[in-house]
């Protein structure tokens, strides 16, 4: 005897404790099972791409901070690489190393945030989040030491970085790199073999590898599905071809694998950091670039591997001081397109977990 039921629509609205920002989902539910999902974003759209057309290349750098606001330095990095490619500017070596150090520190901080909020979505009452936040605070203090702000760094400039590191930066960073593996092991002890975590995340929200490639998913989501693709190895930019590191991949593509890939990436970033600190040369930190830069006419596309995926900047210049067109290939928006397909058939509680494992920051999704 079949039970007659009727699907109903629930609006997981823009104001919600666990959508990471203002994101709206219209979910069609059958009891507790998700039948259909319609994501609606755009609540944080600020028109940055249009605003950028009226400002010079250097003035646009603070705007790029505000994309993935939890990982500002990486956005700066991608933009600055694009401009340098367009204008043909060579960056001094010390500046390149500093950029890599900052980017890897930011990657660790971003992954800590991602995993912390992922466990918060699972329901752990903020406890693992605050433990990871403690490490992130240490990193953010170091950022404050170098560039003056904790969150919107505005550190990279066209041709290098804005400031050199003060003398007390390296000892503090070395201490951090030495202590961090113990903390990562602590997180593993708390979470990795936790029975309830395994029950809630293993097999949930599986993203098959072919679907991931077809939908332009990138970053830890792609690697968790088993595709070994990391731009730092596949298309190296800056100094990444000089470092030894591995690319962690998962096999199943479920939420648990995404979480594991992120934790492993923290470990690999620590490796890169310790190598970069050793190899840091002396020298200038910024090339001589005219104040109002006029790149030659043309277009350039530069991409980097941020902690959420492939961030790309496509710049078109018409020879004036402001860019003609600025287009951002936002990894989080593209990662979000698979949300509907991987969450069908799961329950509301799983939807929140899957959404947390995709790890978005609304600034990037909406620009």
């Amino acid at each position, binding site marked *: 005897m079949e039970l007659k039921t009727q699907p109903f629509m629930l609006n997981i609205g823009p104001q919600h404790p666990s959508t990471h920002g203002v994101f709206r989902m219209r979910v069609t539910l059958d009891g507790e099972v998700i039948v259909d999902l319609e994501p609606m974003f755009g609540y944080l759209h600020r028109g940055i791409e249009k605003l950028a057309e009226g*400002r010079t290349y*250097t*003035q*646009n*750098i*603070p*705007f790029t*901070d505000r994309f993935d606001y939890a990982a500002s330095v990486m956005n700066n990095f991608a933009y600055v690489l694009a401009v340098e490619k367009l204008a043909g500017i060579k960056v001094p070596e010390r500046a390149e190393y500093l950029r890599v150090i900052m980017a890897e520190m930011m990657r660790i901080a971003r992954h800590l945030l991602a995993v912390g909020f992922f466990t918060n979505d699972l329901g752990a009452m903020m*406890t693992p989040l605050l*433990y990871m936040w*403690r490490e992130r*605070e*240490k990193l953010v*203090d*170091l950022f*404050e*030491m*170098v*560039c*003056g*702000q904790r969150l*919107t760094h*505005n550190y990279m400039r066209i041709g290098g970085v*804005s*400031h*050199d590191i*003060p003398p*007390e930066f390296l*000892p*503090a960073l070395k*201490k*951090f790199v030495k*202590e961090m593996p113990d903390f990562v092991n*602590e997180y593993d*002890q*708390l979470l990795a073999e936790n029975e309830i975590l395994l029950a809630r995340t293993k097999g949930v929200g599986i993203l098959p590898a072919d679907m991931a490639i077809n939908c332009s998913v990138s970053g830890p989501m792609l690697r968790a599905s088993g595709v070994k693709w990391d731009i730092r190895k596949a298309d190296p930019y800056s100094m990444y071809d000089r470092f030894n590191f591995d690319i962690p991949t998962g096999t199943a593509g479920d939420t648990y694998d995404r979480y594991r890939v992120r934790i492993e990436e923290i470990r690999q970033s620590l490796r890169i950091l310790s190598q970069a600190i050793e190899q840091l040369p002396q020298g200038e930190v910024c090339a001589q670039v005219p*104040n109002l830069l006029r790149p030659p006419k043309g277009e350039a596309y530069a991409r980097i591997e941020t902690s959420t995926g492939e961030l790309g900047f496509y710049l078109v210049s018409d020879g004036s001081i402001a860019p003609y067109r600025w287009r951002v290939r936002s990894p989080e928006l593209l990662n979000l397109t698979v949300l509907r397909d991987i969450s069908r058939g799961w329950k509301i509680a799983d939807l929140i977990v899957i959404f947390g494992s995709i790890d978005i920051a609304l600034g990037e999704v909406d620009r």
Partner: protein
Amino acid sequence: MALTLKHLFRKTITTQYPEKRLETSRRIRGQQFVWRSDLCTGCATCAKSCPHGIIRITTSKNGENKYKVDSIVFDIGRCMFCGLCVEACPYNALYMGRSYEQARYSRKLLWADMEQLMSPDNEASSYGHPEMDEKLPLQTLLVYGQISKDMVDKDD
């Protein structure tokens, strides 16, 4: 679960604000500005380099080829504290402040005029001015377990 029990007996890492404070970084891009009227020539390079255009400068002629700055106002309410103005100034006349408690009750009070910019309460940070580094105190770093100002020692 044993892990959380272990954490129960560790020290807290939060600071009891406002009784205890942390020492900010030397290069903090704080929420005020410090303006040196003796060095400023009124060239308005800072105003041109601001992404939002929040700096308003009016000048008048003061002899041959010189300008006297009549009024200089920063709209702190719309500023994003990126520091591009400080980097752009060719005469080293502009510094970022170190304060982070500039909240006011109305937007009108958030316009920093000449008086506020030159007031002695404003401390200048060394963002863009590395020569100021030695004069400023060291930052509290959580990496060393420092959670209040008095825990910073000079030779770390």
